[in-house]
Every structure is written in C-alpha cells, then in structure tokens.
C-alpha cells in the first residue's frame, strides 16, 4: 500500500479559486500529466463539476428535442395542396415555444452571471461568443416565427444558423464525457 498526501490548503491558499485559474491558464500540457495534478482535478471534477455539467447537458438536450420537434412543423401540413402553408399556431406550438424560451433564458442568465463574475476575462474565451451568438440568433428567429403568419426566408436562414450553433454548443457540452 502507498498513501499519497496532497496538502490542498497549502496549495490553494486563501483565494481558493486561484488554483483552478492558474491551471486553466497554463499552456504547458506536461503539467497535466503530473499525477498529483490529475488527482486534484479528478477530485474537484467528481465532487461538484461533473454533476453540474451533466444537468446543463440534460437541460440543453430537452431544449434541442423540443426545438427540433418545433422545426419539423415549420412547413405546415405538406399533404395539403398549396404553395404556402401558414404556420399552425395551436396549443402545442405555444407549449413548445415556452419550453424553448425558458431554457434559452436560463442559459442567457447563466452567461450574464458568468460575465459579471469574469468581467474582461469573459471575452477572451471564444466559446462565449458562440454561446451569445447562438442565443441571439435563436431569439431573433423565434420572434420572427411567432410574429409572422408564414415562415419567411430570413426566418429559415436564421433557424439553420441556430441549428448549426446548437451543434457547436452540444460539442461544447459533450466534453462532460471523456
């Protein structure tokens, strides 16, 4: 048997977030091959970070499913013979939109809190731009979708872009799994 003691209190000091900040900003990959570092990261990950990001991924998955179901109804009933199908805006439509909006709002709030805590640091990470742009495009598209009777060309293009951004976001969130 071998026992390794890692004195975290001495490593992290008074400002407890400084440890992860230093590790995050480190460009040296060899650092992450150190066993002690790996143990610290594993501990923090398993204790609080993993569950948090799993919940985030799950929430986003709910949004995506609702969003995609909503997109499937975009072109109305195709079996009817008409060039333009007006958007069917029944109760199901409203429920889908409300679910999507709530989840998007949650993610927007999350970004705002992150921005307030990080301030200038926030804009250094390019993921954050994608995130904000994704939320913005989705909101724009859904406002157009809700207010207009038919789906306009701009609305379709915006929806395509927001679907693409959702792919980026999924890639971002899927990092929970190795």
């Amino acid at each position: 048997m071998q026992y390794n003691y890692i004195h975290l209190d001495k490593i992290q000091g008074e400002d407890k977030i400084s440890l992860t900040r230093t590790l995050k900003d480190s460009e040296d990959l060899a650092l992450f091959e150190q066993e002690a570092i790996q143990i610290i990261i594993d501990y923090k990950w398993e204790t609080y970070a993993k569950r948090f990001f799993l919940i985030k991924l799950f929430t986003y998955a709910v949004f995506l499913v609702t969003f995609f179901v909503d997109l499937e109804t975009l072109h109305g009933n195709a079996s009817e013979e008409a060039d333009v199908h007006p958007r069917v805006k029944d109760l199901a439509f409203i429920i889908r939109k409300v679910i999507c909006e709530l989840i998007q709002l949650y993610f927007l709030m999350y970004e705002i809190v992150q921005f307030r805590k990080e301030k200038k640091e926030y804009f250094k990470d390019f993921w954050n731009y994608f995130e904000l742009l994704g939320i913005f495009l989705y909101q724009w598209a859904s406002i157009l979708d809700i207010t207009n009777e038919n789906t306009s060309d701009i609305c379709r293009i915006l929806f395509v872009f927001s679907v693409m951004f959702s792919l980026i976001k999924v890639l971002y969130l899927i990092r929970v799994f190795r």
Partner: protein
Amino acid sequence: MMMIQVVNDVVYFMLLFVIFILTFAECYHIVQVNTDAYGRLPAIAALFLGTLRSAMGDFSLIDPYQGFDIQRKQKPGVHCTDDACKYQHSRLIVFFTFFIYVVCVFFLFMIFMNFIIAVIGESYSKVNQYATAHDYRQRVIMIYEKEIHFGQEDFDNEEYFPNILIVRKKK
C-alpha cells in the same frame, strides 16, 4: 479541443486548396464549360462547385451524355450539316477542355486530396498523443467555469475544498 487543433493545422492547406480550385474553375470558365445543371448560380460559382466535386472524386462536372462537347439545340426546320452549327465549341476547345479536366483531376483529386488526408491524419495522431493531458485541461476549464459561480459558503465547504487529500494506491 481536438477538432479545433486539427482545423487549425489544416487551415493554410485549405486556403491553398481553395486557390487551386478557383484557378481551375477560372480555366473552365474561360473555355465556357456548360453550367446549366447549376441553375441560376453565376457561372464562376457553379464551376467552383463543379471543380470542388471533381476534387472530392465526383466527376460529374462533365455531362454524362455529352461530355464537354455541348450540342446546340436544333431550331425546327433547320438541318445542320457542319460542326459549327451542331456544336457549341470548336474541336480545339473541346480537346483542350478535356486536357484541363485531366490535369485538374490529377492535381486536385489525386495529389491534393491525399495530402489533406495525410495532414489531418498526422495532426490527429499528434493530438492523440497528448489526449489525457488535453482531457484534464478541458476539465480544469469546466471546473473553473463552475467555481466562478460559487459563493463564499461554497468556498468554506469542507467537502468542496478539503485541506488534505489522501490517496491510497495499491502497489
């Protein structure tokens, strides 16, 4: 992330690839390759797509029935006897177009495509070598993202921020 690393490594290569495709598309444009199949797209954009397709191994840039040798639509009542009336391009231009086509396929498909695959493969194996370290780095970034949402009571939480970690290892 791995994908970003790979994309970063091939970006200059892709730029060169686009320049090559544009050059060949322009050559096709000069000899007036037919672009009817691409509908309302401007000719140079259509030819760019066509060249890209041939670079990817889809050689339907040429019409399967007529090749590059496009026949004119016959006007009713007019019977054509000579080549100039029957075909859109002269014999020389048609031969030359096929020559460009072969050069294009050789450079873009056979050489360039395989180069790109090799570069991506190399970049991937380079990333894969440090996969564990990359993985830990990603997780540190995520942990940091969680920690900035912590309040003082979380920082005082003994479970979240213990004073000592004891790891038992079996030898």
